[in-house]
């Protein structure tokens, strides 16, 4: 009797081990094989990112991290250099036949990673795969999430082996800026292996070709593409990539990323926490670089809920925040104060606007005009018996900024405190106008008001992009009208005037406290050369080299 249970126990344990492994159907996949040393190329660069890419299919994602990796494997018709703007890439030349049709002349002799040549068919296939309904068949037929980004594109037709014509529903000034974010995919290859095969082993025209990827894309290994056509002629040096292998690895915890850099396990790390920058700068074999940020921060006030229904109160809230102190102390000087609703780096920013100065006295006066005074001497402003309490809702990521702002409000007698939420939970309550104030950011990677300005400051209109992120429930008819005009006027000067006026109105009505725009901070080991952090979420590894 005793012998019997010996055997069952051992049998059971073996069963356990087998079950755990059996239910893990991993096809024998290669981990990062050392790539063959291409001519003149040297070494491997490890880029440590804070979050994992979602997909490697250029048409099936909307995440910055995915774009960071994708734009090293795939090139688009045009590309952008953060300093010098948009340049031709796979397109040789582009000209507008009229405000709604764009003729594109493709570069010839460009090869995909599998050696096949890129032609007009691939470009047409790429864009149709984005704008057609249910064009992506894996895992279930669905439309590309990027369709909205190029919504005005009505159709695209092949006009020659190396030329295509794009037809738009109306004038679309930001066309160039937004085409940068659409990359060309190989038609023949996708039709052969299907989307499932494509995302397992992506083929593109970029400087690097795909080698392998860990589950959930925690680690993506790319290898130098020897016969790369050289990239955009305007961006020297033109030619194949400098380094032999690039690995994008995910390290979610900030201090671990920094430690990985200091320990030499990572060569480049992204979104470095402000507090750790002094340490990195002090270390001689580490270099820290910053680039203009694209995530402006606001504290949006609910304009339909007292006390923020009064414009004086909203202005006072702007005057009460010492942005320079926050920039100097919390961001170590690596941020700029927001002049108004648009980020200073946006092409159509209203240059006449300057940030609300820090003037607590003015703030107190404005509040007094609005009827808020500390009548019962308890240190908190009150109005007909009601104390001025203000709960700032935000995400844990913006904890330091939120707490600093709350401190400053407490200093002028507002009983302010902060609550951290999960975005998906708080979003519905914000849209329903149930909350007082929400501190967050809104991406502006296209440096153009379209896709950014209307989502924040246009009144909310269901089933349209207008006011999708408008948490202050602010709506001004004139501003709405101006925004709609701005989207369709082609002439840049006219657009500038439209947006200037819109920004002025929003500035004066102050539906939000315009806070700061932190810079993108990245760090790399000293052995890395000609690398610079990109603010439009593209870690351009094309020219980056690593001295052994």
């Amino acid at each position: 009797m005793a012998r019997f249970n010996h055997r069952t126990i051992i049998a059971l344990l073996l069963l356990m081990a087998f079950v755990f492994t059996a239910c893990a159907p991993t096809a024998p996949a290669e981990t990062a094989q050392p790539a063959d040393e291409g001519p003149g190329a040297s070494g491997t660069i490890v880029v440590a990112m804070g979050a994992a890419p979602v997909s490697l299919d250029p048409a099936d994602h909307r995440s910055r991290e995915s774009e960071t990796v994708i734009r090293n494997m795939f090139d688009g018709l045009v590309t952008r250099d953060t300093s010098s703007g948009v340049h031709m890439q796979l397109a040789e030349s582009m000209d507008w036949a009229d405000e709604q049709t764009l003729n594109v002349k493709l570069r010839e002799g460009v090869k995909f990673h599998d050696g096949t040549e890129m032609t007009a068919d691939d470009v047409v296939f790429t864009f149709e795969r984005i704008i057609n309904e249910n064009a992506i068949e894996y895992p279930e037929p669905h439309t590309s999430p990027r369709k909205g980004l190029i919504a005005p594109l009505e159709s695209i037709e092949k006009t020659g082996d190396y030329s295509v014509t794009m037809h738009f529903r109306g004038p679309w000034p930001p066309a160039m800026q937004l085409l940068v974010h659409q990359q060309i995919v190989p038609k023949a290859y996708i039709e052969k292996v299907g989307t499932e095969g494509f995302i397992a082993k992506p083929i593109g025209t970029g400087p690097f070709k795909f080698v392998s990827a860990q589950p959930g894309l925690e680690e993506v290994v790319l290898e130098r593409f020897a016969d790369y056509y050289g990239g955009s002629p305007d961006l020297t040096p033109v030619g194949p990539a400098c380094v032999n292998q690039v690995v994008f690895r995910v390290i979610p915890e900030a201090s671990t990323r920094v430690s990985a850099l200091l320990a030499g396990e990572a060569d480049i790390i992204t979104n470095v926490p402000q507090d750790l920058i002094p340490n990195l700068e002090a270390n001689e074999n580490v270099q820290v670089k910053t680039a203009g940020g694209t995530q402006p921060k606001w504290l949006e006030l609910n304009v339909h809920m007292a006390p923020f229904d009064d414009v004086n109160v909203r202005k006072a809230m702007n005057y009460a925040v010492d942005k320079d102190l926050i920039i100097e102390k919390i961001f170590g000087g690596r941020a700029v104060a927001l002049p108004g609703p648009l980020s200073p780096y946006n092409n159509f920013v209203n240059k006449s606007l300057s940030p609300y100065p820090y003037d607590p006295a003015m703030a107190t006066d404005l509040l007094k005009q609005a009827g808020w005074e500390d009548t019962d001497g308890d240190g908190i402003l009150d109005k007909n018996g009601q104390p001025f309490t203000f709960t700032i809702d935000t995400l844990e990521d913006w904890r330091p900024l939120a707490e600093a702002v709350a401190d400053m409000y407490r200093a002028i007698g507002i009983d302010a405190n902060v609550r951290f939420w999960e975005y998906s939970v708080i979003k519905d309550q914000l849209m329903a106008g149930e909350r007082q104030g929400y501190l967050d950011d809104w991406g502006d990677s296209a440096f153009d008001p379209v896709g950014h300005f209307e989502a924040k400051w246009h009144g909310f209109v269901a089933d349209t992009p207008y006011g999708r992120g408008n948490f202050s429930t602010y709506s001004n008819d004139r501003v709405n009208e101006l925004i709609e005009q701005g989207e369709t006027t082609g002439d840049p000067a006219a657009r500038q005037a439209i947006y200037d006026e819109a920004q002025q109105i929003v500035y004066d009505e102050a539906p939000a406290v315009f806070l700061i725009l932190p810079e993108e901070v990245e760090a790399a080991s000293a052995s890395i050369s000609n690398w610079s952090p990109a603010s439009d979420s593209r870690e351009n590894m094309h020219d980056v080299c690593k001295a052994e």
Partner: protein
Amino acid sequence: MEANQNVRSPLEDQLYIWRIRLEIWWQNFRNFVKALSVHPLALAGGILVILYLLSAVFADQITVHNPIQGNLRIRHMPPAWEDGGSWEYPLGTDSQGRDLFTRIVYGSRISLSVGILSVGISVIVGILLGTLAGYFGGRFDSFVSRLADLLLAFPFLIFAIGVMAFLGPGFTNLILALTFKGWVEFFRLVRGEMLAEKTKEYVEAARVTGQGHVAIMLKEILPNIIQSVFVLGTLRMGYMIITEASLSFLGLGLPPNIPAWGSMVAAGRDSLLVAWWVSTLPGLAILFLVMAINLFGEGLRDILDPRLKLEG
């Protein structure tokens, strides 16, 4: 004199009884303290626990600064004993320039109540269900055990997020999230011990003398089991306080106007290289509290446990 002595009114009887009880209680307390003094560690533990309780109760009297109001100009000031530190902020300041000593003292209020409440509720529920399940067995036992398995298998984080999402981040929701699974451990421990104790002779002896089931459970078996429950309870106290840190690590922490050690440790982690004290000192506060509770518990156990006494 003899006569009226036994003619006492019922009230006087009650008083008399209460006086006797008081005396006995006082007697027990005195030799308890005498026994405690012999056991140095327990004494140290006890004093530390009392210190924590005092700091929780008299937080505003002890501290000078406001625990919530920050001042960015004195951000990341090192503790007094390091260069750059000043005795006005003995333990330095955090990333918002708030005095760390004040926040830790106020933090004891929250963390102590988080620890005590969540462990307390878990212990009570755990013992109640564990005793019944272990003692009676049968369908009730298998039902509760399967429920425990279910809860144990239910990822804690989903429930925590659910609670935080539904009711918003806050103190009571945190307790709810912690006790949701907390009782399972005590349930399984008590059930396991009850199964083992049930087969022992003294339980049969008690049944033979006609004691009811409830009496047996409470008077006979529980005193023996309370030992390991006590050990696990004191360990879980620290664990509960730390879980609050993990929750704020994932973005679900308590709002900053409720200073809690867990969120302080989590918030300070990024600047460990630059300002080690912001995250470490609240962590040490947790450490000493857990250590104090365990040492005091250890001493209490040696004093109260009859078997550990030497004969004679």
